[in-house]
Every structure is written in structure tokens, then in C-alpha cells.
């Protein structure tokens, strides 16, 4: 490790992994409730478990991004972090606020939580993924601003690289679009329209910039490929991302009370959206081919290639499957949406987290060449269990969604099954989904175990 302040990344990474374990655990609870509606009712109703599942996901991704930024920015900028102390303080503020919010979800009814956090003064709660109490949202803004200040000061006072500039652009965009979380109009259609400014423009916009920057950093380190070359790829990928992704928000504006020109514009723009992900696959594999060093941390490169491939499948292919308006007419709000969401989030954002942790964590633990062979072997087993588990979850949900459309959406009104009757028919598929979910969780446990594999004493 070149700079001591890079160490602040460690608690961020560890906490992100802990949250991931919680996130998957609640995913399993949800999977079980899909099969048996009585499970944990009324102790943890479905909506509460789901809120915990999705909110933990968002928070853990933010922690992973922060950890990644704190690790890579000093090295890229060739100077210490502007304020390591601030980074540690914001870690604790964010961790405590995050845990308190989750406990709030679990311990009191949501309406009570809204009341005791004075949601009536500035209502922002009760929208998918933006369920956090207003006070938590304000907390997120403060934490993110102090984080960005820290990163930006480091970047501007040190060497500026394409990677850090892209990263900072992504972070600013993330902060800017989150402001729409505070806008909650009375008109449901307007509300939904601007809600996507946070959700879509994060996930298919600025977060991808951050993903591209992290991926590029790891690729430079483990392949030794010339930086000029990496920079060019990064620019092209994020150019494609923003050109397709910004107007691509339109694929969410088909059936929520917006003008019908979005049917065309949304379809055309989002047909381009798989391209940046395809480019990312070519990028990762061609960098491997052109590599100049044979880094001993082989598993980090595996994660890098895996991120590109699974993000392409999940975000690109599974997104494109139902992104054209005439198809989306039938798939909108079915289990196909869930199938796409699961693989896209896992491939793009969870795997990039594993990628940077896989590269950085051994170094922070004094193992400059990566973990020992045995630990990498264990980590590789975890990699495959998680990847195959998530592919299984996705395939099961794809079958569930298709079946749902055939029974409930496709027939004329008189012949169609009701939602609840359809869901009862699909239960066998949900059993498969739960099985693959368990496989994913096992993969995470194996991965976590790899941290505890002892290094051979003769190494030094």
C-alpha cells in the first residue's frame, strides 16, 4: 500500500460485506414468503422484509463505492487523502444512521416510523427504494457531501487522471440526482416521473461511471496495460452509457401517465443500452490479452471479467428482453422485471464491489501480491457459487414471469386468471428460486471464509 490513508477503506469494505449478508438473508425470507404467505407474519410482513432487502442493497453499494474511492483516489492522485479523520467520522455516522433506520423498519409499523420522524413536515417516505425517513435522507446528503468534499479535495490537489475525473463526475451526479428524492408532488404520475430521476439515473447513469472507474483502476493494476489505452476505453464506455442511459430513462415512461412519444424514444434509446456493457466485456478481456504483468492476485482479474460478463447479461441482455414498448406492455411489473433487476444489480454493482475488495483487501492486510493460492481457491469456489446461484435465481424468475404473462396478462379479460390465482400456480418455480438463493448465500459464506484461510508462514 502506497499511502497510509488508503486504510480507511477497510471498515467500509467490511461493513458492506456484513450488510450484504443481511441483504441476502432478507432476500431468502422474501423468497420463502412467496411460497408460504404465513412465514414470519405478522412479525415481519413482506413489505418490511422487502424494504430491508432493497435498502440494505442501496446502502451497501454506497459503502462499497466510498471504500473503493478512499482506496483508489490517494493512489491515483499520488498523495494522501485530504482528511482521513473525516472519512472515519462519516463512516460511523453513516453506519449508525443506517442501522438505526433498518431497526426502525423492523421494530415499529411504517406509519409510526413516518410519524415519529416527522414525515408530515417534509414528506418523502413511502416510495419504492426511497422508503428512508426524511431525516435519514438528510443524513445521507450530509454524509455524501462530506465524502465528495474529501475525494474532490484529494483529486484537485494531486495528480488528475481520467479515472479520478470520471469517478468524481459520477459522485457529483449521484449527489445531484438524489436531490429529487426530496420532491414528492401530489400528482402520482409526476411523482413517478421524477422518482426515476433518482432511480434510473443512478443505476443506469452515474453509478455506471463509478463502476467504470473502479474497473479501470483494477485492470491497470492487475494487467499492467498502458494507462493511455485504458483511458480511451473508459471514455468510450461511459460515453455510450450516458448517451443511451440518459434518454433511456424513457423506457420507464411507457405506462405511468406520460405522453406517448416516450414509447418510441424510450424504446430506441434503450435498445442502445446493452452496448456499453458489451464494450465493457470486450474491454476486460482484451486488457487481459494485452497484459504486461502476471499479477499473482488472479482472482481479482476473475472478478473484473465476471463483473463485465454478468453485468452485460443482467443489465444488457435481460434488460433488452423487455425494454421495447410493445413487449413491455405485457412484461411491465411482472417477475421478469425482478429477474432483470436481480442479475443487473448483482453483476454490475455487487461484483464490482467484490472485484475491488479482492484486489485491495489483501494489500491492506499486508499481502501485496494478493492472498495465498489456497485462499484464492476458496474465493473462486465462492465466486462460482454466487454467480451460478444468481443465474439460477434469474432463470427461475424469468420462467415465473413468462408463466405469469401467459396465465394473467395475455388472455382476454374473461379468460385470464387473477393475480393471486396466477401466483398460486407459479409456486413450484418459486421453490427453485429459493433453492438458488440458498446457493448464492452459501457462496457468500464460502467467500467470507476465504478471509480466514491462513497464509503459509514461509511466504516471506
Amino acid at each position, binding site marked *: 500500500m502506497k499511502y497510509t490513508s488508503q486504510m480507511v477503506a477497510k471498515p467500509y469494505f467490511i461493513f458492506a460485506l456484513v450488510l450484504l449478508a443481511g441483504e441476502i438473508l432478507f432476500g431468502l425470507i422474501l423468497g420463502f414468503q412467496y411460497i408460504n404467505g404465513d412465514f414470519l407474519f405478522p412479525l415481519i410482513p413482506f413489505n418490511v422484509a422487502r424494504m430491508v432487502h432493497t435498502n440494505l442493497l442501496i446502502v451497501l453499494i454506497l459503502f462499497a463505492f466510498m471504500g473503493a474511492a478512499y482506496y483508489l483516489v490517494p493512489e491515483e492522485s499520488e498523495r494522501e487523502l485530504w482528511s482521513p479523520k473525516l472519512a472515519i467520522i462519516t463512516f460511523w455516522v453513516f453506519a449508525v444512521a443506517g442501522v438505526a433506520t433498518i431497526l426502525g423498519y423492523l421494530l415499529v409499523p*411504517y406509519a409510526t416510523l*413516518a410519524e415519529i420522524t416527522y*414525515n408530515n413536515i417534509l414528506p418523502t*417516505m413511502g416510495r*419504492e427504494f426511497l422508503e428512508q425517513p426524511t431525516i435519514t435522507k438528510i443524513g445521507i446528503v450530509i454524509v455524501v457531501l462530506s465524502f465528495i468534499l474529501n475525494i474532490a479535495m484529494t483529486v484537485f490537489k494531486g495528480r488528475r487522471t481520467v479515472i479520478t475525473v470520471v469517478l468524481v463526475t459520477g459522485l457529483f451526479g449521484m449527489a445531484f440526482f438524489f436531490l429529487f428524492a426530496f420532491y414528492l408532488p401530489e400528482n*402520482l404520475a409526476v411523482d413517478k416521473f421524477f422518482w426515476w430521476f433518482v432511480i434510473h439515473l443512478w443505476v443506469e447513469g452515474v453509478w455506471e461511471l463509478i463502476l467504470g472507474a473502479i474497473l479501470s483502476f483494477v485492470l491497470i493494476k492487475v494487467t499492467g496495460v498502458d494507462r493511455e489505452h485504458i*483511458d480511451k476505453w473508459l471514455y468510450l464506455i461511459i*460515453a455510450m452509457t*450516458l448517451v443511451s442511459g440518459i434518454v433511456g430513462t424513457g423506457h420507464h415512461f411507457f405506462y405511468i401517465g406520460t405522453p406517448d412519444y416516450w414509447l418510441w424514444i424510450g424504446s430506441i434509446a434503450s435498445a442502445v443500452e446493452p452496448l456499453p456493457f458489451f464494450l465493457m466485456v470486450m474491454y476486460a478481456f482484451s486488457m487481459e490479452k494485452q497484459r504486461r504483468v502476471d499479477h499473482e492476485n488472479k482472482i481479482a482479474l476473475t472478478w473484473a471479467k465476471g463483473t463485465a460478463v454478468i453485468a452485460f447479461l443482467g443489465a444488457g441482455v435481460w434488460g433488452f428482453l423487455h425494454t421495447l414498448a410493445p413487449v413491455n406492455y405485457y412484461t411491465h411489473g411482472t417477475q421478469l422485471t425482478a429477474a432483470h433487476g436481480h442479475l443487473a444489480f448483482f453483476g454490475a454493482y455487487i461484483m464490482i464491489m467484490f472485484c475491488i475488495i479482492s484486489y485491495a483487501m489483501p494489500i491492506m492486510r499486508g499481502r501485496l501480491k494478493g492472498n495465498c493460492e489456497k485462499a484464492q481457491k476458496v474465493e473462486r469456489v465462492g465466486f462460482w457459487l454466487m454467480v451460478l446461484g444468481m443465474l439460477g435465481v434469474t432463470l427461475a424468475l424469468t420462467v415465473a414471469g413468462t408463466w405469469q404473462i401467459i396465465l394473467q396478462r395475455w388472455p382476454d379479460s374473461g379468460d385470464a386468471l387473477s*393475480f393471486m390465482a396466477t401466483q398460486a400456480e407459479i409456486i413450484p418455480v418459486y421453490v427453485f428460486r429459493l433453492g438458488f438463493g440458498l446457493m448464492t448465500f452459501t457462496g457468500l459464506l464460502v467467500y467470507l471464509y476465504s478471509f480466514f484461510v491462513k497464509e503459509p508462514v514461509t511466504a516471506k
Partner: protein
Amino acid sequence: MTDRITKNTARNIYFGGSLFAILVFAGLTFDTVQKFPELTNEDKITHSVARGKNLWEVNNCVGCHTIMGEGAYYAPELANAFDRLGGGNQDAFRTYMKSWMAAQPLDAPNRRKMPQFNLSDKEVDDLSNFLIWTSKIDDNEWPPNIEG
């Protein structure tokens, strides 16, 4: 593949392309906002409808249900609940909603459960009025059939 493109060209594609996309999106956003009042019958948003939307939010209904296709996929679509359950009759729908909300959670083993939210009659009316207003938004003829 990237050999033919210089780093400067790549950067210009990034800045130029993004700026173009942002401008197009901003323009379309501006136009969409102008059209919302007509598409959504904004003049029909009464205080009761607004209160109903707030109840929808602070009880996290979207954590199980979808509305215009968005939300969780655990419980039925509600943007067309008025047409499906009220048959287009507002009084019938409000009456139905009161008895339905009071009956939760249903005593049916293994069936997905809706929690009891303990809403007052007036609150259930507000919620019903919100769903009635929602059902009339012009959402490009979605969903394909009454089952949502």
C-alpha cells in the same frame, strides 16, 4: 478496435454525446411536465385524493403492491383496482374497500397476508378516492386486461 480512435476523440465523444443527451432529455422533460395536467386530470386531485396518496405512502403499500406496474410484485396491481373491484361504481368501490380493509388479515392458511392497518372509515374513503383518481390517469391503455 480502439486503435483508430485517439484519446482526445474518445473524450470529445464523451463530452459531446453526454451534453447532447442531457439537452434532449431536458427538452422532453419540459414538454412532459406541460402535458401532465391533461393526462392525469390534475384538476380532479381533491384534498381527499391527496390525503389518500399520503396514506398510500406512509403505510408503504408499494412494498407489496404495484401501481401502474411499479412497486413490489407480491400483491395485485392497484391502478385499475377501481375498475376491477368497483365495476366503475364509486359508492360500490368505497363500500367494498371498507369491508376489505376491515377483514385483513384474511384467515386463509399459507395465503399471502395483508396486514391490518387500522385505518378509520374516513381514511379508507381517502384511499379509495386516490385509487379512483389513479384509475383515470391516461397510462397508454395499460394494463392489457382487467386482471392487471
